[in-house]
């Protein structure tokens, strides 16, 4: 039964509201936002579930990094998205360790850097501390509790190709597009 509940109750309005929050988060990397318009099956957080409903549709292959039958069923009803392997995914969801190795995901082509995957990373904590972020959309610098820095630096170095990240924890999210420069501090 849980597969059929927990979706948007007013899809047109909630999609627009949620998308705006996500866009703000992507435009200002490292800022933390509340986004909890959908209730996916446990243990997935509401922010990650909402992001999936905002971005996934029947033309968006989604890769689930760890088996999650309840979530798969939920997505099938509420998003209608196909589930895929990492190599053909446009969206991927999982914990940082489950998403490894990252080189499985499409990073786009020089002519079409947009044909790359966006990774939704579920974290145990999401705070404005830790590695230092600079780059487009960030005034001076920001800090974000990233699981590591090397992978994000390597990703940035591929510009204009690369992956984009949406980091989620419970009802909150922050974004880390490929344009952001990540440094240890």
């Amino acid at each position: 039964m849980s597969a059929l509940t927990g979706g948007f109750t007013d899809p047109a309005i909630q999609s627009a509201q949620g998308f705006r929050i996500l866009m703000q988060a992507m435009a200002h990397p490292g800022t933390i936002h509340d986004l909890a318009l959908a209730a996916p099956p446990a243990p997935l957080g509401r922010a990650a579930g909402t992001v999936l409903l905002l971005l996934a549709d029947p033309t968006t292959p989604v890769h689930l990094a760890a088996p999650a039958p309840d979530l798969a069923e939920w997505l099938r009803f509420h998003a209608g998205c196909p589930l895929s392997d990492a190599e053909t995914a446009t969206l991927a969801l999982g914990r940082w360790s489950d998403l490894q190795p990252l080189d499985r995901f499409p990073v786009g082509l020089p002519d079409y850097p947009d044909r790359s995957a966006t990774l939704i990373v579920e974290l145990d904590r999401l705070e404005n501390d830790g590695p230092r972020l600079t780059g487009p959309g960030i005034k001076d610098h920001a800090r974000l509790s990233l699981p590591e820095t090397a992978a994000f630096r390597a990703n940035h170095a591929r510009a204009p190709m690369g992956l984009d990240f949406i980091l989620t924890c419970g009802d909150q999210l922050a974004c880390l597009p490929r344009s952001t420069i990540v440094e240890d501090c």
Partner: protein
Amino acid sequence: MSAPPDPRRDWLSLMARSAPERLAEVLPDLPAHALLRAPETGTVMVQGRVSATGAPFNLGEMTVTRCAIRLDCGTVGHGHVQGRSHAHARRAAVVDALMQTDEAPRLTPLLEGLRTTAQAARDLRAAKAAATRVEFFTLQRGEDA
């Protein structure tokens, strides 16, 4: 995909193809239900095939409205109908759920009525087409004589 598990497929298809007003006429009152997916209008990309039988290609979209509901007894119903009528999709979903309960015998004759209406419209068109059926003759040409 798996073989069609009619009769559910059958009644769902009938709901989609019935005129919204006609369906509302036949089933004016709906039992209490909860919306699992509020009626939502979107598009479905209609596919044809290259030279009728080859690779699929995208012909263009059509409007479709869908809805999912749950009756108080817990039975879930899905409605997918052509066009933009929210009431139609909702009614189709309720019928889908009811047809899975012991209400089915009461509804079956009503659905038969819808089927008869749809079939009559189709037959009428076929009869008009049949009246324009033509036999062409080739006339013998002078030089062949």
